[in-house]
C-alpha cells in the first residue's frame, strides 16, 4: 500500500530493536472464515506494539478489526501466521496479562453490580476492587442495581470499569465508548490517562476518532483485512496537516 510510504514513521516507538521483546507481535497473520463465499477477514497482517502506548485500531465496518482482536485473545484460531504476547502464543498465560472488553456484553443480567465485582475478583488475581468501586462511585452507578435494570450506556460503563480495574499488561477494548454519553466519555478518557501505566499498553478500536485522538500515541489503519498504516498521531498531523479524524474520512471516503 503506497499510503504506508507517504507517512514516514518518525515519532514511532523504537519497537523493532532486537533486545526488547514487543508486548504484542503479529506475524503475517491471516484469517479465512470457512463456508460459502469465504473471504480473508484478516490478510497477511504484521506489526508489533511496545509497552507504554495507547493505540487506536481504526478502520471501516467489516475491515477485520474484531477478527484481529479475537485472534489476539485466543478466541479465534489463525488460518496462518502467528500472534505473540510477551513472546507467548495466546493461552492461559496470555489471558492473565490481557484485559479484554469484547464488542458484545457477556455479563449475567440477573446479577447485581457488586456481585459482578466479586465475580471478577474471584476470577482474576490482578483485579483491584478499590479501583472498581472508586470509578463506579465517580460515575454514580448504584452497586445494588441488577444489570438488567441498567441502561445500555450504564451497562457499558460497568463493563469497561471491570476491564480497566485489572492490573493487566495489555488492555484490548473493542468499541469501548460507543454507547456512552459525552460527559462520561470524557471521564473515562481521563481515567485512562490517569491510570496510565508505562508498562501497560491499551489497544482500542473505535469509530469515534475525534473524541479520542488526543489521547492516542499511535494509530493502526486497517482496510479489507490488511494493515494500511501504522504511525503516530502527531506524524500524521504534521505530514498531512489534518487531524486523524479528517485523514480517516479522506482515506476511507465512500
Amino acid at each position, binding site marked *: 500500500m503506497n499510503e504506508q510510504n507517504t507517512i514516514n514513521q518518525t515519532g514511532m516507538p523504537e519497537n523493532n530493536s532486537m533486545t526488547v521483546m514487543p508486548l504484542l507481535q503479529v506475524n503475517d497473520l491471516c484469517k479465512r472464515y470457512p463456508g460459502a463465499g469465504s473471504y480473508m477477514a484478516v490478510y497477511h497482517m504484521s506489526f508489533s506494539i511496545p509497552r507504554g502506548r495507547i493505540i487506536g485500531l481504526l478502520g471501516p465496518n467489516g475491515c477485520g478489526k474484531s477478527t484481529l482482536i479475537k485472534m489476539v485473545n485466543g478466541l479465534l484460531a489463525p488460518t496462518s501466521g502467528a500472534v505473540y504476547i510477551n513472546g507467548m502464543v495466546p493461552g492461559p498465560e496470555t489471558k492473565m496479562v490481557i484485559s479484554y472488553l469484547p464488542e458484545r456484553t457477556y455479563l449475567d443480567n440477573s446479577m447485581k453490580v457488586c456481585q459482578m465485582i466479586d465475580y471478577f475478583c474471584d476470577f482474576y488475581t490482578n483485579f483491584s476492587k478499590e479501583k472498581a468501586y472508586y470509578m463506579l462511585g465517580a460515575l454514580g452507578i448504584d452497586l445494588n442495581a441488577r444489570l438488567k435494570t441498567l441502561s445500555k450506556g450504564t451497562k457499558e460503563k460497568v463493563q469497561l470499569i471491570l476491564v480497566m480495574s485489572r492490573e493487566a499488561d495489555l488492555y484490548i477494548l473493542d468499541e469501548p465508548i460507543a454507547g456512552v454519553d459525552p460527559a462520561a466519555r470524557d471521564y473515562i478518557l481521563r481515567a485512562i*490517562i490517569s491510570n496510565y501505566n508505562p508498562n501497560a499498553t491499551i489497544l482500542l478500536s473505535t469509530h469515534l476518532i475525534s473524541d479520542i485522538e488526543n489521547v492516542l500515541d499511535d494509530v493502526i489503519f486497517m482496510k479489507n483485512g490488511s494493515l494500511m498504516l501504522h504511525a503516530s498521531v502527531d506524524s500524521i498531523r504534521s505530514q498531512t496537516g489534518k*487531524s486523524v479524524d479528517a485523514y480517516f474520512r479522506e482515506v476511507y471516503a465512500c
Partner: protein
Amino acid sequence: MAWELNSDRPIYSQILEKIQTRIICGIYQPGERLPSVRELAAEASVNPNTMQRALSELEHSGLIITQRSSGRMVTEDTQMIQGTKREIAIAEIKAFFANMRELGYSSEEILQLINENQPRSDALTQ
C-alpha cells in the same frame, strides 16, 4: 476542562505553546514547581507521552529545568522568559503583516490602520 487544541496541527507542539504561554504570562511563576506529567496530561486530556514530549522540548529550550529531587520547575531566568515573550510577539507581528499584505495593504497603510483602530486601553485588559 480539556485544553482547546486545533485538530490539524501536531498535538505536542500545541501543548508546548500553551505551557510556554502560561510561563510567559506568569500563571506558572519563575522557579515554580510544575504539576506532574500525569496531572498535566489529565488536565489537558492528552496522552501522557505527548505531554512528556512537550515538556522535554521546553526543557531543551531552557524554560523548564528538571531537578532530580523536586521535579520540573520553571526557570528563574526572567530574562530568558522575557526573551521568549519577545520572540513570540515578533512572530505574531510578522504573521499579521503577512496577512495584511495579502489583502493588498502597504506597510504605511497598515501602520495608519493600526493607529486609527487602537482598542481603548480598558479593552486591552482581558
